């Protein structure tokens, strides 16, 4: 959209009045057996394009009753891709827009749906022949295109819509019969499978074909198996985001698709420890998972591997696979002698192109429509389908292959062949060829005998000289290699010995010096020990002395205390005596005063001496105080 389109999206919103007469259809609930289609047309004006361009989008619609509650998380938005073919318009100069140097005219506009539809109808000449200046479209490379990149695995859309109501009726009838007698496959099944199982019924039909209806125990086993550890987890997880990366269910790393694929692959590797996990299996498992839940897919896988014997392909270093390649080449030689001769000329062998066909049951590289059709046939007819399909592929491209050299053929198988079957009619015609290709079981057995005989003869023929010679040569080579290794090891040994010797020498030197140091240190130690001893005796002596000193001091202290106590007693008794004396003096003094009052002369002298008395008191008090102190 113009110059500034990078990374931008535009939304166009439209509203309508539902009451308007034209929209009555939208107000009526769509009946079950009715289909309503809705067409939305948007006219867009583009910068640099002269006329507005009308994009129409047609889709199936359903009008639900008023009270409908929508649980449909699976409903996807309708997406459409358009391819526009523009040509530069010749304009008068005056007409040229200011924004745009070049004006374009619309030549054609085709939506992808229309394109696919036309392609399916094999209308090759619709006008979308891109030329320089057109928008490159990813689906442009038609048959014979020289695009070199191979198709991404899991490409192609398979519609669930049933176009042939008659066929559906036949299937419905057959399935009814089948469900009534599960173990008995109705006769019509074979014919119907050859026409291709309707996509909507595939899950159910595949389970019935493989005989899974009786395997409730497998479903149970699966639940236990997914909890167990497998030695193959690393190999399995490496293949997860490269299995059907073109399919949206498996596209996202860690999405539900890859998660189921991982769990199922792991569970099978535990279930069948001998085969474990082999590259190629993941594609088959993915094809099953696109049609049924994990548990059922596991049951069908187990049936395919064991009952259909596909597991033999992966066992014992692909021994059985080599036998199949031989059988294929022999049938190939019978049915297509010219092409077989060409392959012999260019030295192209079956294992170079058929490994991935057989190991993935054709599921790895082809468009899904073809993959499913082949699986319909395989589940119906058994393992020999690999031969009829492989031969049909060779037959269908016989002319192209005859013209190619070694590299060209291999590239054809890798790139061109899968692309060739992108259209359903091409795939259908391939399956018609496969259905017509008869592979007789008797012949296969004959070829098997041949193969075994050739192998035995090879061993015998080689016996004994060549075999021994070969063994001898191989052993000599091994011997030489070992000798070489031995030489280098010996050299390594010598160099390491030398370095070790040097290391040892230096270590010895350092040891000597260390010894000397040690001696010196031990001498010093002894000295210091003696000193410690001396010091400790001194210490004890000092302690003793100190103790006795303390004892004597304590004794002296005691003695002093006693003296003090005695002295206190003395003081006490002295003060008592003193008090007694004082009181006796006072008595005498009072007596004396009394006597003296009677004598006037004495009273006079007493008055003179009276002040002397307090001094006596004072001296007594000071004496008292001194004693107390």
């Amino acid at each position, binding site marked *: 959209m113009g110059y500034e389109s990078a990374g931008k999206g535009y939304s166009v919103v439209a509203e309508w009045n539902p009451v308007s007469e034209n929209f009555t259809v939208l107000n009526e609930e769509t009946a079950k057996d009715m289909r309503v289609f809705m067409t939305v047309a948007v006219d867009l004006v583009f910068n640099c394009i002269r006329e507005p361009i009308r994009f129409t989008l047609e889709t199936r619609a359903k009008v639900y009753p008023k009270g409908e509650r929508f649980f449909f998380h699976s409903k996807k938005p309708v997406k459409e891709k358009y391819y526009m073919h523009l040509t530069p318009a010749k304009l008068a100069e005056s007409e040229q827009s200011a924004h745009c140097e070049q004006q374009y005219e619309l030549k054609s506009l085709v939506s992808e749906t229309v394109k696919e539809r036309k392609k399916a109808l094999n209308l090759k000449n619709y006008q979308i022949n891109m030329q320089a200046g057109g928008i490159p479209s990813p689906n442009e490379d038609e048959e014979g295109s020289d695009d070199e*990149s191979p198709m991404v695995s899991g490409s192609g859309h398979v519609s669930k819509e049933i176009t042939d109501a008659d066929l559906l009726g036949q299937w419905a009838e057959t399935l009814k019969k089948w469900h009534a007698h599960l173990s008995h496959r109705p006769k019509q099944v074979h014919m119907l499978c050859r026409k291709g199982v309707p996509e909507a019924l595939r899950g159910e039909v595949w389970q019935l074909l493989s005989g899974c209806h009786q395997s409730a125990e497998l479903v149970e086993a699966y639940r236990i198996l997914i909890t167990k550890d497998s030695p193959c987890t690393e190999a399995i997880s*490496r293949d997860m985001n490269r299995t059907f990366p073109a399919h949206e269910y498996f596209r996202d790393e860690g999405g539900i698709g890859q998660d189921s694929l991982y769990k199922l692959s792991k569970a099978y590797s535990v279930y069948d420890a001998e085969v474990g996990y082999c590259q190629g299996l993941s594609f088959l498992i993915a094809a099953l998972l696109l049609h049924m839940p994990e548990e059922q897919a596991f049951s069908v896988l187990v049936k395919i591997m064991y009952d259909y014997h596909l597991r033999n392909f992966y066992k014992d270093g*692909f021994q059985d696979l080599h036998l199949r390649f031989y059988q294929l080449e022999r049938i190939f030689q019978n049915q297509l002698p010219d092409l077989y001769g060409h392959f012999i000329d260019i030295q192209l062998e079956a294992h170079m192109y058929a490994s991935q066909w057989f190991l993935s049951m054709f599921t790895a590289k082809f468009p899904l429509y073809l993959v499913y059709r082949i699986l319909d046939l395989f589940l119906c007819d058994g393992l020999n389908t690999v031969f009829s399909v492989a031969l049909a592929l060779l037959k269908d491209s016989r002319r192209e292959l005859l013209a190619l050299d070694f590299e060209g053929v291999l590239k054809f198988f890798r790139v061109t062949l899968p692309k060739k079957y992108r259209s359903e009619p091409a795939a259908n015609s391939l399956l018609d060829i496969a259905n017509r290709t008869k592979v007789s079981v008797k012949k296969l057995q004959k070829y098997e005998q041949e193969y075994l005989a050739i192998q035995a003869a090879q061993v015998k023929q080689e016996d004994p000289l060549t075999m021994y010679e070969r063994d001898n040569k191989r052993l000599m080579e091994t011997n030489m290699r070992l000798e070489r290794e031995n030489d280098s090891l010996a050299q390594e040994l010598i160099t390491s010995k030398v370095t070790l010797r040097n290391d040892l020498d230096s270590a010895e030197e350092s040891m000597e010096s260390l010894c000397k140091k040690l001696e010196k240190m031990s001498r010093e130690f002894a000295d210091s020990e003696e000193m410690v001893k001396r010091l400790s005796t001194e210490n004890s002596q000092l302690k003793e002395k100190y103790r006795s000193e303390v004892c004597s001091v304590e004794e002296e202290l005691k003695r002093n205390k006693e003296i003090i106590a005695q002295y206190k007693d003395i003081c006490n008794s002295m003060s008592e005596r003193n008090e007694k004396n004082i009181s006796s003096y006072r008595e005498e003094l009072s007596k004396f005063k009394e006597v003296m009052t009677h004598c006037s002369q004495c009273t006079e002298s007493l008055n003179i001496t009276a002040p002397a008395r307090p001094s006596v008191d004072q001296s007594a008090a000071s004496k008292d105080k001194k004693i107390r102190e």
Partner: protein
Amino acid sequence: MESSSNEHIDYVFKVVLIGDCGVGKSSLLLRYSDDFFQESYLCTIGVDLRIRTISVDDKRVKLQMWDTAGQERFKTLCGHYYRGAEAIIIVFDVTSENSFSNVLRWYEEARQLSRQDTVLVLLGNKSDMADSRAVSTERAQSLAASLNIAYFESSAKLCDNVKETFTATTRKMMEAYQKHHRAHLPDDLTNSKSLHMSQPIKSSTSLNCFDCSIM
């Protein structure tokens, strides 16, 4: 593709890429032959062939490069391609210790099944993922040195050192060829019919390396 069908070719060399699952063998070849990279889309079941014609020292060399499945069990199937190879590139993933420790086993296998003059090369891929690197260049180099083979490091994603690795390997193949004086030059190279399988390869060791096990 660089070559047209009647171009003059001096050498046709077969190169086989081996190594653990998911180390990027197919990506390397896709990058080298188609100059294209896809994040983990390619799963090789069995073998796959890629072609590229290059000029090395004024010689036109066509490389037939065989991509092999990495799973252990495919060794019996892919091992048949070793004998016809002029070079075997052992690829490991520098972010995977496991793929590196398996290098020795791949080496043994290759030595045993290849010819004496087959050039062996060690290649560490995914060098762009520096953050999750598990094997240092030094370790890989010392392993290569102990095996007496060349070591390269590349990133198929960033197209780093891919071309250089193949060119150097081609040079080694030319040296090995000259050393062993093998009649390697196709006599009539302008004859487009025989171009795809050069005569000498056919006559000497041949691509028909399957004989020994099937017939």
